[in-house]
């Protein structure tokens, strides 16, 4: 390999000599991005490009709805729309779904899309050795069956209120048997864009798929460029190297873009409930009075201002404010230091105590952690800040549950169910809540579900399981002449098909 | 080149040179006649090199100069460009250290050619080069070599060739031979003499060595601390010097040492048997294997107690290596030494009982004391070798040592930089004597000293020998010097002792070729 590398370097050097003349052209500004090409910034580079084999949000942000499509799809507002399934019927017992598939669809490699692909996809995800990150979506499926070439029946083990939503997510996109194993490096889907190239460490390039069966797409080419450093992100945008940054990593600088006619700043919502996650089994946090004291001591406004520069909506429970079932529980434990100290004293800690807080890399956590430490110091709780990388966080906090407090954003949509899992890293073990969630899962009637969800929100808020801080905002920046970019992030993804440049 | 012997080629009037505010040359006035050989003599720091540089317009930029220097009747130009036309073409220069004076990265032939081209352009370069080489006594094969591939004498010949390239009217030689060994020195001096005669060239010869100056020059100026003490015909300097300092110079050049008291040399004190020392060549993990260099080759000799033996030889003959082995700073590869029945030679570290009977006095008095340590501490250091001394005994010994070399005990609290070179050499001797050793090895004990103090140090050594009954092994390249202080002279060449005899016998009837060469190289003062 090394001789190869050096050989290449020799060529490189020759090129260099040959293109001395090119240097004269270097300082002429690069051609402006064509109206049909777009370059979008992303913070994280995906580990691979197969959304059915990994949890990383970055995979979906590139591939979902662009390269891959599911039977259904989620639109910018979180509504479920037909995609590869043009229509579906649901049996009266809410257990069997019959999907009619879109005709004439071809994968990017030219192979035909039919019921067999759907069956393959689901069976692959349901299999025991499945590496799908959302096995929960598939575990309730009893059977997947092709009725004919263009229709598929899926039978569930028990009714599920959000099955259609779930199969519209990136984890349930349809893949072809022939190409599935290669999707990590060379993703082949049915979507409006096909994969061109992945310059590792740098960018993924997509190109419009000429045989796409669906609404016409305005873009011809798209690049996702990976920029993890917020400062670099700011200058890359300002310098015009990028057309947009759907999830801009530096809320502190949005002001610059808001005051610049070339750009627009779009603040939407994400599914990210940002919480002060608490180890409910570890003393003293196993005492509800301690948790309540913390809840009283947290000044959400200061955190949102200080960590997110005002972008974010305060939450009082683990529920997204834009969700139709949402109720505002922020005032259950208002900011009240006196009350907090009193509760702490009742719990037996009149002089407070010491604890640790583990902070993953995002700035909401690192900055938020400093602010929370400063706030809790007011009631005598001394926090030691421990910065961890994501890998460490997953290992120590998430799987080993070795932590007191941590700050993290839970980005799964409608994920209140995690509180019913006593092994989840919050270690919240409450039978009442577990029963409540079982009931919710079985309920399909919307009004009934709403009532249950509201009760659950109130329940969590009152138990002060975690410190509920704010709903993470989706702060996007893009050129003023771009339309059709998702303002909110109901699921992770950047739907390129709706994006167009206007004059 | 028409020459008028009566006219002055150089005329210096009231020359002052200073650095910052420190004066270096103080009101110097003299002139050099066309065609004469003029010598400038003085100790280090006397300003003699500075005078030469001033004439050539090569003073360092930090130097300030007042006064006039006329060359061929016209003041030398201040402008570097104009001056550069005089340098080389009218004034040639040769410096002391030919290794550093040549560009290490350039073949020596090219360095000569560069000078030739400056004066003649491209015309007949090869021919001129060959002619020059022949004149300075080099062969054509030397052209393609780099300075480090030549010997010191050859390098100095290259320097002479460079200086002659522009056919200058005045040749300035700044200590041209002091970095060379005696034999080479004599050859270079006679070469210079011959060339100046042949070319009818004026010579300004600068040296600290009155002997060298006297062999070459007709007229001499004596400089001391930036002041020109006197200018006179060389004959008059020797016979009828006006100045006290000049007289001292002349006296020490003749090396008048207070005569030896007759000391009876008795039994054998020390002997060396078949000593061999090889040095490995090449570096760590080296692939090329070179034959080891044999520095000392099967050497045997003896020294009696109270005897003073001199070891003489050209540089690189192995005498210093031998000395280091004797005092235990180095190990012999084979053979052994015997000091009063104690046999040693191959140990890495000598036992105390042997070590305390041996001492070494170093060549360079400036580096033989730790500058950060008081003299008293340095002199006390060898007392570690004597066990069970009380503090009082120690200080008594130290005081006796320093007083025996004629210095005051109050000086023990001073630091080395507060002493002059001669005083330091006395202190070094005091340190060597503090343990009352039986054998003292003296490695060129006076060659780094100014001529004026050499005599007193040698006299001191003689006195000490009779007083304390010590044996001396005196290492030197200077036959004149050892003649006066040695009972016996051993001549060493290429790692072997080739001849030994009493001084008078050796001088009158040398046997070995190298002894003859060494004797021939001595510059005898004939006044």
């Amino acid at each position, binding site marked *: 390999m090394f001789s190869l590398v050096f050989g290449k370097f020799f060529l490189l050097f020759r090129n260099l000599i040959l293109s001395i003349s090119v240097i004269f052209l270097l300082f002429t500004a690069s051609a402006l991005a064509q109206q049909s090409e777009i370059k979008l910034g992303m913070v994280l580079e995906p*580990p691979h490009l197969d959304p059915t084999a990994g949890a990383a949000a970055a995979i979906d942000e590139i591939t979902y709805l662009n390269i891959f499509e599911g039977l259904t799809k989620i639109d910018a507002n979180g509504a479920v729309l037909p995609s590869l399934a043009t229509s579906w019927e649901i049996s009266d017992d809410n257990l069997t779904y019959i999907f009619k598939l879109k005709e004439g669809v071809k994968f990017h490699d030219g192979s035909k899309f039919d019921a067999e692909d759907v069956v393959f996809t689901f069976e692959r995800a349901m299999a025991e050795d499945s590496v799908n990150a959302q096995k929960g979506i598939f575990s309730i499926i009893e059977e997947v069956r092709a009725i004919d070439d263009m229709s598929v029946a899926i039978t569930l083990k028990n009714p599920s209120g959000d099955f259609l939503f779930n199969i519209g997510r990136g984890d349930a996109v349809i893949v072809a048997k022939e190409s599935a194993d290669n999707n990590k490096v060379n993703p082949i889907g049915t979507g409006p864009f096909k994969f061109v190239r992945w310059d*590792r460490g*740098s960018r993924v390039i997509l190109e419009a798929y000429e045989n796409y069966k669906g609404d016409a797409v305005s873009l011809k080419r798209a690049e996702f460029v990976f920029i993890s450093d917020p400062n670099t992100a700011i200058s890359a945008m300002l310098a015009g190297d990028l057309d947009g940054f759907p999830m801009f990593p530096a809320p502190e600088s949005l002001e610059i873009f808001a005051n610049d006619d070339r750009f627009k700043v779009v603040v939407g919502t994400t599914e990210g409930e940002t919480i002060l996650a608490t180890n409910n089994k570890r003393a003293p946090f196993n005492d509800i009075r301690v948790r309540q004291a913390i809840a009283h001591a947290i000044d959400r406004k200061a955190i949102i201002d200080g960590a997110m520069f005002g972008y974010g909506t305060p939450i009082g429970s683990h529920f997204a404010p834009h969700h139709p079932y949402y109720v505002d529980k922020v005032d259950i434990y208002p900011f009240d230091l006196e009350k907090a100290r009193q509760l702490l004293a009742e719990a037996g800690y009149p002089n407070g105590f010491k604890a640790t807080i583990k902070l993953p890399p995002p700035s909401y956590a690192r900055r938020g952690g400093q602010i929370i430490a400063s706030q809790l110091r007011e009631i005598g709780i001394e926090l030691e800040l421990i910065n961890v990388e994501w890998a460490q966080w997953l290992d120590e906090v998430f799987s080993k549950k070795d932590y007191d407090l941590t700050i993290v954003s839970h980005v799964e949509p409608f994920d209140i169910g995690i509180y019913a899992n006593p092994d989840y890293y919050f270690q919240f073990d409450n039978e009442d809540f577990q029963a409540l969630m079982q009931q919710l899962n079985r309920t399909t009637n919307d009004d009934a579900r709403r009532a249950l969800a509201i009760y659950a929100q109130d329940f969590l808020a009152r138990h002060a399981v975690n410190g509920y801080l704010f709903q993470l905002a989706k702060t996007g920046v893009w050129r003023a002449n771009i339309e059709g970019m998702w303002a909110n992030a109901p699921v992770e993804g950047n739907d390129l098909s709706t994006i167009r440049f206007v004059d | 080149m028409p020459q008028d012997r009566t006219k002055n080629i150089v005329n210096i009037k009231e020359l002052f040179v200073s650095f910052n505010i420190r004066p270096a040359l103080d009101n110097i006035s003299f002139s050099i006649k066309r065609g004469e050989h003029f010598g400038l003599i003085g100790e280090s720091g006397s300003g003699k090199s500075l005078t030469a540089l001033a004439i050539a317009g090569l003073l360092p930029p930090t130097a300030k100069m007042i006064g006039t220097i006329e060359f061929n009747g016209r003041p030398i130009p201040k402008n570097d460009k104009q001056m550069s036309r005089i340098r080389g073409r009218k004034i040639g220069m040769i410096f002391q250290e030919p290794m550093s004076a040549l560009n290490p990265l350039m073949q020596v032939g090219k360095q000569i050619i560069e000078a030739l081209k400056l004066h003649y352009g491209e015309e007949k370069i090869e021919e001129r080069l060959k002619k020059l080489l022949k004149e300075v006594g080099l062969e054509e094969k030397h052209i393609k070599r780099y300075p480090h591939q030549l010997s010191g004498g050859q390098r100095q010949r290259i320097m002479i060739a460079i200086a002659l390239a522009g056919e200058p009217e005045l040749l300035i030689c700044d200590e041209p031979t002091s970095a060379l060994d005696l034999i080479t020195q004599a050859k270079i001096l006679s070469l210079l003499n011959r060339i100046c005669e042949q070319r009818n060239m004026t010579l300004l010869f600068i040296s600290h060595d009155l002997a060298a100056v006297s062999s070459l020059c007709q007229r001499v100026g004596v400089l001391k601390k930036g002041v020109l003490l006197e200018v006179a015909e060389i004959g008059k300097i020797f016979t009828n010097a006006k100045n006290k300092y000049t007289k001292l110079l002349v006296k020490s050049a003749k090396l008048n040492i207070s005569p030896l008291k007759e000391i009876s040399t008795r039994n054998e004190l020390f002997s060396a048997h078949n000593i061999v020392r090889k040095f490995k*060549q090449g570096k760590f993990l080296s692939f090329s294997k070179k034959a080891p260099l044999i520095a000392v080759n099967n050497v045997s000799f003896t020294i009696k107690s109270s005897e003073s033996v001199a070891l003489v030889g050209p540089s690189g003959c192995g005498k210093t290596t031998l000395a280091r082995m004797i005092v235990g700073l180095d190990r012999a590869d084979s053979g052994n030494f015997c000091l009063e029945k104690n046999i040693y030679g191959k140990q890495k570290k000598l036992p105390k009982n042997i070590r305390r009977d041996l001492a070494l006095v170093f060549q360079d008095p400036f580096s033989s004391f730790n500058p950060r340590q008081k003299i008293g501490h340095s002199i006390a250091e060898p007392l570690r070798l004597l066990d069970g001394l009380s503090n009082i005994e120690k200080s008594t010994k130290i005081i006796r040592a320093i007083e025996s070399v004629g210095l005051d005990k109050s000086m023990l609290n001073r630091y080395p930089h507060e002493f002059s070179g001669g005083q330091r050499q006395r202190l070094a001797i005091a340190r060597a004597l503090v343990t009352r050793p039986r054998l003292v090895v003296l490695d060129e004990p006076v060659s780094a000293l100014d001529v004026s103090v050499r005599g007193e140090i040698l006299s001191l050594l003689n006195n000490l020998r009779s007083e304390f009954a010590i044996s001396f092994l005196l290492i030197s390249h200077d036959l004149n010097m050892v003649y006066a202080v040695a009972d016996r002279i051993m001549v060493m060449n290429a790692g072997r002792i080739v001849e030994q005899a009493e001084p008078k016998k050796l001088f009158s009837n040398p046997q070995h070729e190298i002894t003859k060469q060494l004797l021939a190289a001595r510059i005898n003062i004939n006044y």
Partner: protein
Amino acid sequence: MFGSILRRILIFAITIFVASLVIFLLLDILPGDPARFILGINADIEAVAALREQMGLNLPIWERFWHWFFGLLRADLGISVTQNVPVAELIGERLFVSLPLAFFALILAIIIGIPIGIIAAQNRAKFIDSFLMILAQIGIAIPNFWFGMLLVLLFSVKLSLLPTGDFISWNEDFAAALRSLILPSIALALPQAAILARIMRTSLVDISNADFIRTARAKGLTKKQAIWRHGVRNAILPIMTILGLQFAFLIAGTVIVENVFYLPGLGKLIFIAISERDLILVRGAIIILILIVSFIMMLVDIAYQLIDPRLRLRG
């Protein structure tokens, strides 16, 4: 001569061996199980054990080291835990950014630093000397990442002349790739250029006091001629060693600069590998860095031997 080059190569080989041993041992004591990391949090114990077996993690440490070391000799550095791609391949790609970047920076440092040093030395103790040396002082004192940011703000954001990084592969668009390396190499080069200027100045001042310069002037050369014909080449010799060291610094400096600009270089790769705890990748990347640096040092030593006639004939 040939022998001394061979000797230098042998030292290089020993260095690499010792370095790989040290790196391997250091990174082997780390807590954490790569097999578990690959399979994820929920993997069952049997699968992890199987993968450990497959990855050779159960072998004794010495066997694993030999395995890795001989892999290194074949340019096989294992498979990245997080990216599932051969490490050698990942690194190979990144070198096409980092090496040119460091190389350009070196060239820049030379073409900026050396002339400044020469000008300052020629005008010693004059205003221009002090001025240039104050500039060099400032150049050394400014952190290069900060300077990089300032460059971006000026040339990319305000003037829109150059990209803020945005490296496109050499094959795709050579000129664009070159453009994207201009600002980072300037940022990287600045402190090194300042250091070079100072060393060049000192070296020349030293040389201009050297005896052979006096000889050259005595021949009839003016001071300037003497310094140009004899001084500069001699002054360059010590500079060469410095350049070798500087290249090492520049290679390492890419780690920082690639983070200021978004360049997909080796530095960025290491950075991400560390944050994702991909130790196989970290290990490979570090040993490659060491390999490059040692190789450069070796080249410098050999070049030194070729240029300096005093070393040419030595054993």
